[in-house]
């Protein structure tokens, strides 16, 4: 009798184990099965994301198909809200998200540095570029070029600047044409806008000349990319700079008014940073999700369905690190995922930069 029980137990255990093993992705360590099994016990993963639900949905569906029994609860919120919720929920000690995924790279790294992240070395690490990993805690997950966006109906091809240097030239030689028609982020209101402009200042040796040229054209600064794109599409503004390429490409598919330029001298590349919460209740499911997002399968969907761009060299497509490198080569400047992002979270430095930018580039009222 005893042996029967033992046999049944062994049978169950092996069935369970093999079922789990069947799902361990190729090339992952064998003990990954334990994570998969534990994740199924947890049954769900809670994600706070600043990526809108429409873009996240294909990933969620595919993940749930890959790991049946692990449900994704995705909360779509903006970057500031996400940061606020993470820090207040941690302080209150109640339930919070398991995975945080945001395009606000500096705030994400601040959270990581402030000890909010779980250290976890993803099995995918070897396939990722170095710049996209910080301390095996924060991971860059997307590859989004920062572009010029212009109105094709109203701007002739030869009028369109192809680089930052040309932008400065066009604006200073043809100021009347572009007066009140240039748009970009209001860096005081938009954290992403601030991050991008400071990266510009770091990379572009003649950045302040460009800023001066922009200021001469009475630019119209907006707080979100939605407002900028709408106004470029309508022709109220002719050209926008520092537009997040993934959003622009998505809209350009439906709207033939949009022309996109990846600046030839340098094209910044932004990457949404993801990390697992140190206090995650569903830490195993969270690991599955992170690994899935970084995997070839997840990145293929990111590039082709979510339109956010893949960081992996082995994923093909127009909007991937691989595809963009063919045309832009070394001009691609990914923003390093790491503590360099924290420079301007220092209040004095930040205010100083804002002041200088406003004195140079803000519309002369």
């Amino acid at each position, binding site marked *: 009798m005893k042996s029967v029980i033992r046999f049944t137990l062994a049978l169950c255990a092996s069935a369970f184990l093999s079922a789990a093993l069947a799902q361990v992705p190729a090339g992952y360590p064998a003990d990954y099965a334990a994570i998969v099994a534990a994740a199924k016990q947890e049954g769900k993963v809670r994600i706070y994301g600043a990526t*809108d*639900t429409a873009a996240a949905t294909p990933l969620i569906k595919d993940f749930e198909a890959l790991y049946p029994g692990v449900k994704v*609860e*995705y*909360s*779509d*919120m*903006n970057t*500031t*809200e996400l*940061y*606020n*919720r993470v*820090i*207040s*929920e941690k*302080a*209150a000690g*109640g339930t919070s998200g398991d995975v945080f995924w945001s395009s606000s790279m*500096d*705030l994400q790294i*601040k959270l990581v540095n402030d000890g909010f992240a779980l250290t976890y070395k993803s099995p995918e690490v070897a396939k990722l570029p170095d710049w996209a990993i910080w301390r095996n805690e924060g991971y860059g997950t997307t590859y989004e070029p920062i572009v010029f966006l212009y*109105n094709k*109906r*109203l701007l002739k091809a030869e009028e369109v600047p192809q680089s930052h240097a040309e932008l400065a030239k066009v604006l200073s030689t043809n100021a009347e044409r572009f007066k009140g028609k240039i748009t970009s982020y*209001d860096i*005081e*209101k*938009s954290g992403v806008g*601030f991050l991008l402009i400071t990266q510009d200042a770091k990379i572009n040796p003649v950045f302040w000349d460009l800023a001066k040229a922009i200021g001469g054209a009475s630019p*119209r*600064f*907006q*707080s*979100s*990319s*939605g*407002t900028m*794109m*709408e*106004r470029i*599409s*309508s*022709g*109220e503004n002719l050209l926008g700079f520092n537009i997040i390429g993934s*959003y622009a490409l*998505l*809209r350009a598919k*439906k*709207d*033939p*008014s949009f022309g996109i330029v990846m600046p030839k001298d340098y094209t910044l590349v932004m990457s949404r940073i993801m990390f697992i919460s140190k206090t995650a209740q569903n830490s195993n499911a969270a690991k599955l999700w992170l690994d899935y997002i970084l995997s070839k399968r997840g990145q293929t969907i990111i590039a082709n369905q979510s339109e956010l761009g893949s960081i992996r060299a082995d994923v093909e497509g127009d909007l991937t690190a691989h595809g963009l490198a063919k045309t832009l080569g070394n001009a691609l400047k990914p923003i390093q995922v790491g503590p360099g992002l924290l420079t*301007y*979270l220092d*209040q004095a430095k*930040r205010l100083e930069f*804002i002041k200088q930018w406003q004195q140079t580039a*803000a*519309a002369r*009222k």
Partner: protein
Amino acid sequence: MSAYAATAPSGGRRFSGGQWLRGGVISIMALAVSAPLLLILYQSLLDAPFFDTAAKSGVGAYRFIFDDPDFWMAVKNSCIIATSMAAIAVPLGAILAFLMVRTDLPGQRWIEPLLLIPVFVSPMVLSFGYVVATGPVGFYSLWFSGIFGGVPWNVYSISSIAVIAGLTHVPHVYLYASAALKSLGSDVEEAARMSGASPLRVALDVSLPMIMPALLFSGVLVFFLGFEIFGLALVLGDPEGHLVLATYLYKLTNKLGTPSYHLMAAVAMCIIAITVPLVMLQRHLMKNAAKFVAVKGKAGRQRPLPLGPWRWLATALIALWLILTVIVPLSGIALRSVVNYWGEGVILSEVLTLDHFRTVFDQPALMRGVWNTLLIGVIGGGLAVACYTAIGFATHRRPDGWSRFVDYLVLVPRAVPGLLAGLAFLWVFLFIPFLSPLRSTIFAVWIAYTVVWLAYGMRLVSSSLLQVGAELEEAARSAGASRSRTSRDVTLPLIRHGLLASWLLIFMIFEREYSTAVYLLSPGTEVIGSLLVSLWATGGADMVAALSVINVVLVGIGLGVALRFGVKLHD
């Protein structure tokens, strides 16, 4: 009134059931209002988030904003906007109310729902509509400049913002004024008209002075709302850098990189400091409220005044206002929802599409948002009015310290911009243990909405209450009815139209609220307002337009049904 007060059982003797009830209502309300508020005050005196163990106290936050020239610019702009709003909305709202309630203006039945549209459309949507319709390359601007060679307006200027804000707040005044007018007998007006006064003269010299309490309340409230204007100033003020207090506060969210709660809280305290004197002023004006009592035991029937030839002028006035405030922005947004793109050089007939609506119907999160919005509007709105009425009764005809306390308290939440109030409520739900299970339910959103719009609902309820003559209640009391019995069987039935109108108003307000719920939302409890905000930020202008149109249509249907079956605005 003094005789009445003397016969009422005094609080000192012993606590009856009614008094316990009153105490309970006042304490719950005081708690709901003061918890988030004290949190904001406390936060404004720190230099980091209050839950950060490294936070130190001090007045650095105030020093920072007072040193910031942007703050003073925002104060100036807010004052301009609030003043012009009151100057535009109060006279127009009062005249509209007079025309709609008191005269034989043609087509009142279908004009009335149109009048209310600006209230239930989110200001974000309305301003987006103005950009699409009257911006530099808007539908109407292009059409206008095609004929006249240019447009005389600039929709992004501070004066445009002030005028639009004024025009869109006319319905607020209209609702208060018409509710008050409806409960007045028309005998005095008829007398004036028979003695040869023109309808305008009747309106200015007879009807409107009689509803002074409602006009003062709504005037002060519109002035408040002027300091709270957010969406309009955000969309229309952004391109030329015009700041108002609420957008300045919003700007502080990101100015220092990490959200600066202490600075935001300090700005909120400044806004409160501006509004508190207003409440005092209002109370001073209202000291003699009793002289306005006009529903007497023998109130006569209301008969509409014949307008005669004036009707054309009146119709033209209403039509002009409707065109500017409703038709221009909403046709803009409606047109935007069925085109792929728009603007200079676009032939609209070539870009028509219904795809945006298909996308909305295909996305479960968006559809859930639509249902939740209806739920919180209809059921949440009804519950909120019940709460407001309970508070109204707790202070009705009790000119004591508690009533004064309540009067001040109700006006304060509205002074805190919705976004920050929402954040404060998140903190309350997070850090008060027994409340935390509520956080991820729609109930949390309801509490936040109810508290944030307290001033609004309370004024409507108490305007109605003020119109009930004390002698009606005194009669019931002399016949031996208890205070609560009197409230239930005499006062409540008399103010039922006012209550239904407030339900309608609150329903519409809850439908369009967009900032308060942002921090409280979790999956499954989306509402249209917050979906609009998040879609707008990532560039989904197509979805924003489609969802706005759906919102307007749904509320329109709801309003139509309410008018047709239950709620009678005309009686």
